């Protein structure tokens, strides 16, 4: 790191600073999507499919159109003249089946909740009244719900024109898997079931669209993770130049991957605004959120692990099915989940051979998509559970097993058996740190004593590798227009404060604060003197937004270089004015100082001169004091991060309830820009992982009818049920960048459910119960396993 500030007490990078914006949000002064209102706006409500699969025979909206306060009732036939249909295509997934998708149903429906018609009225309540007056006749078709049944010969077809429910098939193999298993001293195998859950953002999805016919301009406000991507696709679908589409994301109350897609209902709202020439607002209610936000996971995986006589892992072999719902979500495709679930299998360990196969299938359910830590928690749970089972089969400490098998390339780099390039890892250091953080020997004694006293306790571990900050190769080579680069624009205002604009997005995670800290150090001003704007396509540079834990690793790097560029401009301008070599000057806390740190001129005075008295500069000097830096990493498709988590759980032998007593995480995300915010990212992620392990489930019945339409039915993890989460860090810098930061946003989710799953199984084993490999671990499942004596002895 070429800067004296880093590591010094003056540095902002590395300082725990609360988010400046939190003050407004906590005071109720946030400006979320539903806080924004426009003159003449109308409110949208959708008629959504009540059945999983049907052909629409009749859709009669005339009565609804006469309902009080109704401005229009629109169907696909109305929108088609101004809006394209789309297909989710990606060269990254050869053979990906891509059925056509329309914003409103085109003659048939393929899942409960699919939008059929759009009512626009003076209020949401009036719009809902009119929805009830729409006449809909349909013929129900047989539906496919269970993913493992979707490829059966007699399975109903979600999209008959495709001829199959297979969306895509993954297969990868390295080494001689058969030989590895043939030679293994120990083989363990398990069938894993990962149910559907979803993101449950505090602020639901929402969009407000206004079309100005005189300018042909569409202006959109959206609660979205990537306004720039939305701008691009709205332009494509509505046949407008991107310069004619403006998207603004104001305060966004959580994303987690839910808000990174192009949703049919949101496109319908924009098309309706264009058609009507009036602003249209849609805010999903909780019922709509639960049934139409992307769902996540839904895998069934049969996997086995081969271990030699010395306890070295030889090979992993997995075969999976993922149910992605009715369509592969636009534009990135739902198949990324399976890709990552398969590619990250066994990632923490050195394996000579590996085989992974998975069928990704359509079903008559809501679309799935990229949810926090895409695919990784699946691979982590499979791998870590098998490692625990192998350790138990060998009668050894599960941590000793991990320590022996970690793949650490040291100063070099290598590939995991399933093809991830890994480097700059610190598995052993993280494990050492975890043991210290837990006070492991004493903790184990305490667990043993409490077990003696009759408690059913379990301690579980899960090591992980999380691939972060995805580079441009992934979507670029797939032909999918997703920005993996980010840009920061930076300028000096006349009072010497800085105006910054970033292509990244703030969803509550604190990326804004981290970028300000980097800019402060890079330029040499106080963070309070920097005004950062994000989420506006009209004024901000195009870029990635929020995905794949990119804020620090990509955004931070863009901010650093933009800041250094501006600093160079400032010092050059000061040098010209002061008639001093620039190299003899420095910029510290908003002052230009000399080598002895004596103040020569404040940045404010310099900026004032540049803006209002430019004639003071020598002839031929025209200071710009504004820069942009577009950062794209030129090496490494993704930056691997690593860590380990541990969970202590207590099982109730009478009810099967699982109580999380304590959770620990040690994570290595390279340089930590803000330890406070990094720690909270990990904790929030852990809560979502525990939610997946114990509570969250988007339930459908066997006919694919949706069962969880409210937060009384869909169990979100709540504060009362969450344990204390201790977080420790190891900082192994990424050597491919200046700051050395890696992604931090998803690691918490990556391994939390695996750690809980292992902890519950540890508790079950301690009392001679059965094994569990299905999440969520519901109380009936746990009680049945507690009472299962078939594995006893």
């Amino acid at each position: 790191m070429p800067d004296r500030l880093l590591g010094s007490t003056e540095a902002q990078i590395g300082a725990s600073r609360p988010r400046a914006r939190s003050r407004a949000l906590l005071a109720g002064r946030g400006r979320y999507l539903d806080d924004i209102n426009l003159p003449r706006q109308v409110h949208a409500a959708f008629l959504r499919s009540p059945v999983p699969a049907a052909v629409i025979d009749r859709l009669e909206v005339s009565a609804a159109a006469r309902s009080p306060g109704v401005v229009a009732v629109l169907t696909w036939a109305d929108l088609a003249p101004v809006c394209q249909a789309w297909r989710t295509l990606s060269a990254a997934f050869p053979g990906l089946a891509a059925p056509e998708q329309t914003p409103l149903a085109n003659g048939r429906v393929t899942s409960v909740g699919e939008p059929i018609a759009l009512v626009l009225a003076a209020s949401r309540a009036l719009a809902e009244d009119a929805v009830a007056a729409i006449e809909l006749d349909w013929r129900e078709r047989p539906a496919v719900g269970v993913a493992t049944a979707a490829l059966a010969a007699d399975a109903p077809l979600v999209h008959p024109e495709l001829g199959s429910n297979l969306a895509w098939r993954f297969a990868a193999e390295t080494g001689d898997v058969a030989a590895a298993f043939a030679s293994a001293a120990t083989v363990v195998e398990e069938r894993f079931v990962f149910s559907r859950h979803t993101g449950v953002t505090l602020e639901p999805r929402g969009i407000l669209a206004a079309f100005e016919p005189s300018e042909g301009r569409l202006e959109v406000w959206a609660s979205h993770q990537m306004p720039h991507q939305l701008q691009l696709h709205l332009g494509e679908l509505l046949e407008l130049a991107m310069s004619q589409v403006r998207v603004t994301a104001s305060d966004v109350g959580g994303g987690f991957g839910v808000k990174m897609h192009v949703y049919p209902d949101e496109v319908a709202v924009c098309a309706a605004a264009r058609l009507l020439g009036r602003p249209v607002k849609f805010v999903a209610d909780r019922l709509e959120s639960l049934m139409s936000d992307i769902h996540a996971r839904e895998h069934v995986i049969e996997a086995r692990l081969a271990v030699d006589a010395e306890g070295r892992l030889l090979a992993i072999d997995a075969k999976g099915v993922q149910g992605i719902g009715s369509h592969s979500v636009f534009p990135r495709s739902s198949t990324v989940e399976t890709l990552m679930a398969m590619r990250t299998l066994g990632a923490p360990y050195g394996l000579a051979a590996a085989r992974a196969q998975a069928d990704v299938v359509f079903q008559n359910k809501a679309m799935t998509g990229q949810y926090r830590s895409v695919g990784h928690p699946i691979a982590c749970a499979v791998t870590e559970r098998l490692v625990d089972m192998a350790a138990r089969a060998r009668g050894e400490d599960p941590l000793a097993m991990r320590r022996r098998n970690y793949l650490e390339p040291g100063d070099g780099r290598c590939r995991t058996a399933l093809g991830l390039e890994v480097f700059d890892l610190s598995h052993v250091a993280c494990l050492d740190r975890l043991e210290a953080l837990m006070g492991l020997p004493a903790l184990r004694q305490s667990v043993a004593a409490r077990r003696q006293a009759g408690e059913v306790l379990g301690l579980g571990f899960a090591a992980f590798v999380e691939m972060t900050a995805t580079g441009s190769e992934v979507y670029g080579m797939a032909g999918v227009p997703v920005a993996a680069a980010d840009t920061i624009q930076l300028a000096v205002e006349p009072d010497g404060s800085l105006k910054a604009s970033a292509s990244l997005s703030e969803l509550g995670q604190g990326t804004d604060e981290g970028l300000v800290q980097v800019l402060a150090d890079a330029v040499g001003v106080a963070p309070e003197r920097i005004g950062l704007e994000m989420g506006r396509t009209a004024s901000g540079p195009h870029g990635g937004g929020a995905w794949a834990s990119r804020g620090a690793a990509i955004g931070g790097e863009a901010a650093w270089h933009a800041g250094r560029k501006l600093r160079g401009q400032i010092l050059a301008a000061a040098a010209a004015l002061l008639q001093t070599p620039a190299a003899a000057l420095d910029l510290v806390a908003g002052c230009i100082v000399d080598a002895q740190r004596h103040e020569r001129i404040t940045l404010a005075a310099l900026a004032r001169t540049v803006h209002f008295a430019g004639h003071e500069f020598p002839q031929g000097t025209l200071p710009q004091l504004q820069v942009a830096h577009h950062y794209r990493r030129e090496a490494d498709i993704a930056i691997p991060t690593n860590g380990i988590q541990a969970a202590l759980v207590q099982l109730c032998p009478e009810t099967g309830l699982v109580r999380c007593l304590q959770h620990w995480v040690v994570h290595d995300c390279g340089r930590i820009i803000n330890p406070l915010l990094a720690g909270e990212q990990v904790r929030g992620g852990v809560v979502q992982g525990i939610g997946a392990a114990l509570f969250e489930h988007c339930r459908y019945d066997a006919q694919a009818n949706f069962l969880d339409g409210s937060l009384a039915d869909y169990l979100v993890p709540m504060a009362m049920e969450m344990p204390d989460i201790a977080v420790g860090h190891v900082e192994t810098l990424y050597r491919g960048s200046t700051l050395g930061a890696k992604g931090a946003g998803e690691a918490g989710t990556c391994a939390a459910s695996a750690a809980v799953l292992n902890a519950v199984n540890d508790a079950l084993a301690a009392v001679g119960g059965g094994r569990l490999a299905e999440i969520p671990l519901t109380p009936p499942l746990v009680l049945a396993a507690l009472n299962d004596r078939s594995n006893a002895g």
Partner: protein
Amino acid sequence: MKPAPFHYLAPATVEAAVALLAEHGDEAAVLAGGQSLMPMLALRLTAPAILVDINRIGALERQSIDAAGYSFGALVRHADAWAAVRADDPAHLLARALPHVAHQAIRHRGTICGSLALADPAAELPACAVCLDAEIELAGPAGRRRLTADAFFEGLYTTARRPDELVVGVHVPRLGPDTRFGFDEVARRHGDYAILGLAARALVVDGCIKDCRLVYFGAGARPVVATAAQAALKGAALDDGHAHGRAAAAVMGELAIDPDLRYGATYKRQLATALLKRIIGQWKAPQ
């Protein structure tokens, strides 16, 4: 999630409220604390033409605690009732049960009588009312009447309240000093409706269960009295493990638990015996 259109009326007296109910009958819904009704309206699970808001009827805010027992008017909130009962008898069934009713914010708005009138079979208070032999007081065009809780609860969200009647209060008789209470429920998260719960009391004299009442909730369409289990315990010593076993067996036999998509009858039966064991433990503890 916006309610269907309704007319909103806010009468100032019980008589005026009853007159409105007499006029509109099944078309009307009574709004007290609104903690169940408002979400049901928003989800359009119910769509009454008339909403009769009784919150302006000051007379319904009264609660009294005296030698006869507890009386709660129709506007007494869970939180206020809990404070009053705790001050009188911290071991009382209601003192034990009320903290399990949803969350604190909800308990500050929701009412005791509202919970009873709604008759959600998974809710705590209907089972407590049956266990305590509480009487529900109804006002109608012909005057007032009282029904025992057992007679009041008929089925899933249905009670013996006539469409022209208003629940104006609940009366909980004071039980003798030898009464011991027990309450527990199994829920995945704090504040959730229970998967299964048990409200219970026993008359214990000289270590012997002279009489007892076991009322399960979340077990059927209304509070379920486990009469066979009660019979198995009656007359037994409090620490008679064989009697406990007979009672557990009786519970397994007599609880005709409705099939539950999420938890299944088998699991709920296991919970029923676990809860019974816990309740007997509570009876044994000094109260």
